[in-house]
């Protein structure tokens, strides 16, 4: 088990009682996010699709690596790593 820091973006902080970061243990990103969901009701629903993948409009980084370029939720974490949850910021005037 590794102890990692999870950085929470401001749109998700109402779920973590305003905390901007949480220390948590886990061996993979999946384990860490599942523990976050156990600790903070509704967290998993905002970040994961049926628990198996990260929602398409959420990016998850381990340090400076996007887990989509690694092993997705099976990406391993080491002691002292930082997991950042980032809402995908997009839009524009186009409608189709």
């Amino acid at each position: 088990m590794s102890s990692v820091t999870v950085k929470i973006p401001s749109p998700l902080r109402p779920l973590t009682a305003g905390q901007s970061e949480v220390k948590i243990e886990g061996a993979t990103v999946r384990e860490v996010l599942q523990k976050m969901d156990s600790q903070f009701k509704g967290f998993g629903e905002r970040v994961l699709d049926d628990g198996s993948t990260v929602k398409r409009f959420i990016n998850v980084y381990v340090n400076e690596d996007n887990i989509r370029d690694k092993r997705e939720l099976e990406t391993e974490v080491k002691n002292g790593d930082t997991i950042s949850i980032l809402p995908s910021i997009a839009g524009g005037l186009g409608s189709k």
Partner: protein
Amino acid sequence: MIRIPARLQWEIYSHAEGSYPNEGCGLLVGTTDKDKNHTVHAFRPCKNLNMERARDRYLMDPLCQLRVAREFENSPWEIIGIYHSHPDHPSRASQTDTDRAVEIGATVWSYVIVSVRQGKVAGAQSWVLNENEKKFHEEPVVTVSEEGDSK
């Protein structure tokens, strides 16, 4: 309400004009008071990764978002808003803007939209998402001098 120092407003407008005919985007960093009013203290431009439809869509580079969050994590400032431009269109929030903001539940951020016509800034408005209504509402933009006086 969002307060933007004139110098940063100029930086945002310059970025919007420099991005024309494509959409530009970036992050507004600052503080939020107890009444949820934002004050911008720094602007950081980010890449628009939507290469195929850069003229009418933007997708902010998440690595830029990550680095800006890190840059300010030990300061009293944080990301408080998003800027993007609408080339040759009004500065109203579009349905696409609304849909993408609703997806991420971005009710705590100001969305500043800059209209650029023929390469020159034609106006700007700021919008805040009401999650229950799933609609953006306009908020006042106040330009302040470096000393903090309203203009």
